[in-house]
């Protein structure tokens, strides 16, 4: 049986995430109750896992590190076809950078038992470092391929994949167990179905804290993070050196005037 673990992150809904701002006075993050959703690309990772399950004998576990409300996205992944859900949830995990996040997730994956395949999104929409996947792979000591856009061939445990580059792709052979991070092109995530939602109600979500993982408090969360964030500077467009000239009039007039301005500036 192919054992697959998918790392899924609960992120502020990107459609509303720009409402999250730094408070100019207190310098803290104003979250403004933006709802949490499954990170976009993690839906592609879940879809890939579920498709493999439909084709092969596979078991799909999703794992997420996050606050208690993150349980809803784990539940959603169960409704999409995952068999098992794990939420790493503990005050001590708070404030983790990419390294501490990867460390905790790697420990969780180890505790879940052996895996043939670990899938991550290429990037999260909120921190967007692209680091968590490859770092998990490095910590687990398994090979990593980032930005996988197509699984070209599966020959037992030897897989061939296409990994996106800025101007093309790499054809990569990778032997399982391996960690892949995936891009949008890999597949089209299925929509939630009613029967999926019903069957997800019966599935267990396991919650683990640091004691369950057997990790030290200093190794996770803010304290386990090599990087620290300091010096928030508020910046916005007002710092721009440009003074805008608004072009007004009817649609036709405005278009005409803009063309004139651009022509006068030698831009056409």
């Amino acid at each position, binding site marked *: 049986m192919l054992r697959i673990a998918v790392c899924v992150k609960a992120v502020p809904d990107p459609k509303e995430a720009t409402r999250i701002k730094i408070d100019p006075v207190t310098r803290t993050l104003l979250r403004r109750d933006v709802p949490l959703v499954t990170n976009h690309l993690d839906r592609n990772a879940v879809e890939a896992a579920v498709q493999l399950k439909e084709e092969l004998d596979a078991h799909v576990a999703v794992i997420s590190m996050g606050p208690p409300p993150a349980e809803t996205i784990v539940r959603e992944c169960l409704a999409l076809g995952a068999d098992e859900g794990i939420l790493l949830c503990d005050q001590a995990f708070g404030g983790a950078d990419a390294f501490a996040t990867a460390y905790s997730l790697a420990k969780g994956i180890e505790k879940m038992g052996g895996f043939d395949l670990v899938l991550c999104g290429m990037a999260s929409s909120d921190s967007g470092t692209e680091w968590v996947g490859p770092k998990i792979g490095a910590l687990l000591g398994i090979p990593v391929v980032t930005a996988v856009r197509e699984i070209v061939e599966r020959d037992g445990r030897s897989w061939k994949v296409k990994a996106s580059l800025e101007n093309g792709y790499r054809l990569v052979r990778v032997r399982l167990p391996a960690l892949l991070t995936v891009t949008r092109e890999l597949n089209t995530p299925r929509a939630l179905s009613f029967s999926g939602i019903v069957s997800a109600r019966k599935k267990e979500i396991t919650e683990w804290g640091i004691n369950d993982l057997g990790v030290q408090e200093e190794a996770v969360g803010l304290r386990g993070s090599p990087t620290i964030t300091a010096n928030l500077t508020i*910046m916005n467009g007002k710092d721009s050196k440009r003074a805008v000239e608004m072009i007004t009039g009817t649609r036709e007039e405005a278009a005409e005037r803009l063309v004139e301005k651009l022509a006068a500036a030698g831009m056409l």
Partner: protein
Amino acid sequence: MPMHDNMGARCGAVWVIAEQTDGRIRTGSLQLVGHARKLANQLGTCLEVVLLGGNLVGVIQPLFAAGADRVYLGNDPDLALYQPEIYTEMVVKLATEQEPEIMLVGSTSMGRELAPLVAARLQTGLTAHCIDLVLDENGILEQRVPAYGGLVSITCPDRRPQMATVARGVFPMPQLDEDSTGEVVPLDVPDEVPGRVQTLEVIREEPEGVPLEIASVIVAGGAGAGDLDGWCKIADLAKVLNAALGSTRPAVDEGWIGLETMIGQSGKVVSPELYIGVGLSGEMQHMVGITGAKVMVAINSDAKSPVFEQVDYGVVDDCRKFVPVLVEKIKEHRERALSRSSRSHGPTSI
């Protein structure tokens, strides 16, 4: 340029992991070397570059010209293509021996994979997609990234090296001193790598049209396009202007266009003469990707959009209706200009 002596240095060296394609050092690598030179000078340490590849004879001089003191050179057919295991192993081994203070990596496809693999192995911090790197009064690297409408400084105070990735175009091209030379330290390819992952081939796909990096006119579209139909109208504008088409993250997420067209902190950094932003809000993560544009224009239906604070000309309108009209006006302008010039110069003989 004087050679710095590692012995007298207060700290380990500043490193740049360089890249080359087709026998030429990448522009982004040279820009990084240029900036790293300044950091090394401020720290009183030397600047070292790691370059791995398959056929590097006659390739490395620009690294010295840009300010490198020393180049660690892995030149071997096995390194011709980026091989994650061997590359990671070589950089980790060398860094463990040499203990650099700072390690900078280009935010390229390779760099974005290699940097976290190396950082995790070295158990150190790594900051993604920096837009500036400065030293604080204690010589700690402040790694600046935009976040939530502000700019944050990320530091890695206790572990070494301090690692960061930086996009091409964030730092200017340094003055190249063609007579500069330095030391070349050859690296051996490790014979024991597990061989669990292997790049078999690199296939290039050139996007159609003008590449963003060298385009003098860029039209960038955002979430305001609304749907693919709206997006195509923005694409038409790019076409009539012979411009490169850029995008914001939501446009990529919607699947209207590929990731390679995204402009910004985690995308491309561009410097066109003319930038036209259509249906985008001017979020800093996008705007930091546009440096030194001569003229900037925004088209947005919301008069209060922050994008209008960052451009020279603004039009408040629904882009799906305005852009087709603009395209027609540009065509008319072109025709008028053409007929004027043929009148003034007379018919050209063939």
